[in-house]
């Protein structure tokens, strides 16, 4: 058995962690976990744990980043050195820069930035424990934290990833499935309109498999959106 041949789903369609192909890992959301921030959210998604904190709107510094007609989103995605079994060197790297950028672009499509010209909204996403799909958890947590901070938004952004393992398309990959699987398709969705604001793909999917992964993501996003709304209304999910 070589790399990529690890059996991750059995003949009955049950994955190693007991989930079926379309199942999402258990999720819990807690708001206001960083009291000094204007808005914050802790999201646990399977073994992933992410804290998102929002500061602002505030004056944008340095001045060259100011936009005269709108605010800028300063997103910083960072993995704690202890978040994975291999220690991560602290500080920005290529991967965190890329994720910060795509997260900012996804959030820019919902945050009403034009209400705060020349300002900056700081979005800090800290990965405390990583187990595949941290960019999705980070983006979803950041969107909930922005809503918690009272920043005007036209919708929430919910992000989920589906992928392919042993030639079967499955939803919400865990670490083993992400490492040994054949493809990964993270998506960011606006649940109230069904619009897509973020899409990446790693690996190869046929058009049919892509459609299947897309449908899994859309369905999961709707369910996770309900959890986020519940958390925003009551302070946490589940109660």
């Amino acid at each position, binding site marked *: 058995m070589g790399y990529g041949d690890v059996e991750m789903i059995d003949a009955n369609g049950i994955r190693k962690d007991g989930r079926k192909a379309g199942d999402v890992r258990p999720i819990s959301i807690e708001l*206001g976990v960083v009291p000094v921030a*204007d*808005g914050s959210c802790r999201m646990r998604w399977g073994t992933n744990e992410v804290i998102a904190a929002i500061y*602002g*709107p*505030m*004056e944008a510094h340095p001045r060259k980043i100011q936009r*005269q007609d709108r605010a800028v989103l300063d997103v910083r995605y960072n993995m704690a050195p202890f978040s994975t079994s291999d220690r991560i060197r602290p500080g920005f790297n290529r991967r965190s820069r890329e994720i910060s950028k795509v997260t900012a672009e996804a959030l820019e499509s*919902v945050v*009403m930035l034009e209400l*705060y*010209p*020349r*300002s900056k909204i700081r979005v800090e996403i800290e990965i405390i424990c990583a187990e595949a799909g941290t960019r999705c958890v980070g983006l979803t947590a950041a969107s909930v934290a922005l*809503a*918690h*901070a*009272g920043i*005007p*938004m*036209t*919708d*929430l952004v919910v992000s989920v990833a589906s992928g392919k393992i042993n030639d079967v398309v499955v939803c919400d990959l865990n670490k083993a499935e992400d490492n040994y699987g054949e493809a990964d398709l993270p998506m960011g*969705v*606006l*649940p*109230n*309109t*069904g619009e897509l604001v973020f899409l990446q793909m790693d690996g190869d999917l046929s058009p049919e498999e892509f*459609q*299947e992964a897309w*449908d*899994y993501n*859309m*369905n999961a*996003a*709707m369910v996770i959106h309900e959890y*986020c*709304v519940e958390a*925003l*209304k*009551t*302070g*946490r999910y589940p109660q």
Partner: protein
Amino acid sequence: MKGVLVARLDNMTEKKNAAGPQDKQRVTRLVAPGEDLGDLEGHELGHGVIAIDGRIRATKNGRMNVNGNTVSIEPRRTAYVPRPGDLVIGYIEGCTNNIWFVDIGAPFNAILPMSLGPSKADFGGTRSVIDIGEAILCRVQEVEETHSSVVTMKGMGLRKIRSGAVENIDPHLLGRLIGKQGKALRQLKEESECRVIVGDNGRLWIDGDFNGTLEVRNHLRSLTAEAKAVTLGGVV
């Protein structure tokens, strides 16, 4: 699609297609950003809502109010945005020869030109009149489109704060603090025997004895805790 649910407006609004925001009566309900609040027709948009494709949508997390035919949201949290005429309490953050920069709790510092300051000072003598870190009671004179603002200390009661304490409260809770026609605030002042000046930016100047100040602080704390209570609906 294999019969699975795909997110489109037609199937997303299925369970939310109530005619409008519950007729003309005053109703409250908790909402999250993006939530469909009903049909736009016959309704006016208040704070925290926008119209998209003839539907009213929430842009903030908070409590929806329908007052008459105006739909608005009382947000759970909000940032202070200055408006001309606001009475605010600010801290001096910096100064030049003839201008003070004042932190009024908004995204941008306001400026206080020497011509609008409390007293005449020589060019370069700004710090001898109000020093960095000192608190002032001032009024917003002008707000530009880009959110830069100018404050003034020319006016009745506007002064440098030399005694008492300055406390903070979320700006959207000021309505609760003041009460209808100022009744709640008047009562608080009487009970605590303190002078309480409420700034529109959520800062309060409390001037009185130790016990009175403590009483006002406790009141503010309980007001904030009540508003942040887990189930917002429970404190309506």
